[in-house]
């Protein structure tokens, strides 16, 4: 087995215990969302409410689409609950990858082996992405199972694009968290910094949608590139996907460059 393979197994061994219940919880959440979503015949009365809702609040909910079966199901992918679960995973694994090993002292045992520092970084990040993919796949499975057991005229297929972009969003947060981890010497400070960045970005996106003077700042939030309601209507927007992918690449390149030179 290659060094990277050993590191992937090691990462899985370290993080599998919290991942498994998280997979179950996110699947259950999206499944419940399908039970709560209004059937198409129940949606009509909701459209009457639209005229009474202020436009900025409507924007936060995702626009007109929010008041439809598909729109309510899409809210399940932008709801703080799954976003917090995915953030917990990304922050936990990213912070543990470099800063956590250094802070605990176990980096001494790993870094003296014939393993390049890039491998240490890549091993941790790949475990993180694998977990993100598993969580997002579980969320989509929850939606698919729900729609299969409650026929309300919706297909799970449009939600695959939402799930894909959700995975890309947290792959980007994971890359940023990994970069932060490379810059710190203990997991605690890496967790604090990465959590702070995610929370600030979320609040920035929220305020920029609510308050017109802040709207120009919205592109600085990663959450601006993930719009579940737009995704269920028109699929993946290439500029949004490219923006998130660019964050992944830049963060990992910076992390690798810093890790190559830093003292462990």
């Amino acid at each position, binding site marked *: *087995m290659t*060094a990277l393979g*050993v*590191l992937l197994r*090691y990462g899985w*061994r*370290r993080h599998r215990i919290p991942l498994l219940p998280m997979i179950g919880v996110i699947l259950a959440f999206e499944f419940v969302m399908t039970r709560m979503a209004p059937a198409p015949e129940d949606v009509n009365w909701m459209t009457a409410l639209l005229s009474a809702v202020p436009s900025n609040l409507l924007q936060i909910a995702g626009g007109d689409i929010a008041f439809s079966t598909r729109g309510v199901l899409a809210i399940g992918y932008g709801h703080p609950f799954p976003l917090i679960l995915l953030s917990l995973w990304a922050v936990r694994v990213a912070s543990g990858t470099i800063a956590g090993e250094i802070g*605990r*002292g*176990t*980096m*001494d*045992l*790993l*870094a*003296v*082996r*014939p*393993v*390049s520092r890039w491998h240490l970084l890549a091993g941790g990040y790949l475990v993180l992405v694998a977990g993100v993919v598993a969580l997002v796949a579980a969320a989509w499975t929850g939606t698919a199972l729900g729609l299969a057991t409650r026929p309300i005229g919706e297909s799970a297929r449009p939600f695959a694009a939402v799930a894909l972009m959700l995975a890309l969003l947290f792959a980007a947060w994971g890359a940023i968290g990994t970069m932060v981890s490379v810059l710190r010497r203990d997991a605690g400070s890496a967790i604090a910094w990465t959590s702070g960045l995610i929370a600030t970005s979320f609040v920035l996106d929220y305020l920029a949608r609510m308050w017109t003077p802040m709207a120009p700042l919205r592109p600085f939030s990663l959450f601006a590139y993930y719009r579940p309601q737009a995704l269920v209507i028109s699929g993946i927007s290439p500029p949004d996907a490219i923006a998130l992918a660019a964050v992944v690449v830049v963060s990992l390149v910076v992390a690798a460059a810093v890790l190559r*030179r830093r*003292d*462990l």
Partner: protein
Amino acid sequence: MAAVPAAIDTHDLSKRYGRLDALIDLSIQIDEGEIFGFLGPNGAGKTTTIRLLLGLLTPSRGRALVLGHEVAGPDASWRREVGYLPGELALWPTFSGQETVELLARLTGRPALWRAELVDCLKLSAADLKRPVAAYSDGMKQKLGIVQALQCAPRLVLLDEPTKGLDPLIQDAFYDLVRKLPGRGTTIFFSSHVLPEVERVCDRVGMLRRGRLVNLGSVRELRQSLPRRVTMVFADDVDPSIVNAFGDVRILGPRRVELHVAAGQVRALVARAASLPLEDLLIEAPSLEDAFRELYR
């Protein structure tokens, strides 16, 4: 025939943290098959040296070659033949002992040829290895640390305070093991505070003080370079100043004096003592501990 490279070869190796010089211009060569003791008080730079030799730290100046490979170079394959026991050993608490040593052997990329022998020598049972490390005592963790450092039959092993937490019987077994390793082609870099153990197992020692190498030589040379402690007991009252010329005289009791005499002066002192009413004469070689105290006073 090409010369065998030194196991460790450093040239002006230095490390600076901000305004603090942790290591200054260390130049040493340690041959393959040697047991090299590395001594110094806390903060002398021992651990910094080891971390520089393993590539965990980047030198501020100078270079280090380990098993003929540039430590700072991009090639990490030389680490396959190196074992390391950290001074502050940290393990993964949820892993069992067995999982820990297997993971580290797999990462080393060499078969764990010596694991069974080490486990036996250090009295680690199969049941111990199945338990999570969180349930281990400090001594058990140290044993596991020794196993992971030596299990893949390394050509060079760096041991930082290896007997910390081990009981005396296991320490003895460990010393016996260490003494056998050069015969199997392993070079040992042995960093310790415990001077009797260094004296017991090492061929040569280096002493650090405030980041500088202040002494380098064989244990025998080091001991010989120091004054002998001579105790003289007289049968009658004798004026102690009669032996003042050989060293500072300390009166231990009536008719009993002690003095420290340079190795080259011992013969002359004995000749002088023959003319005195001497009842007993004790000449002691200094221990490494004496050398250590002398250097760090």
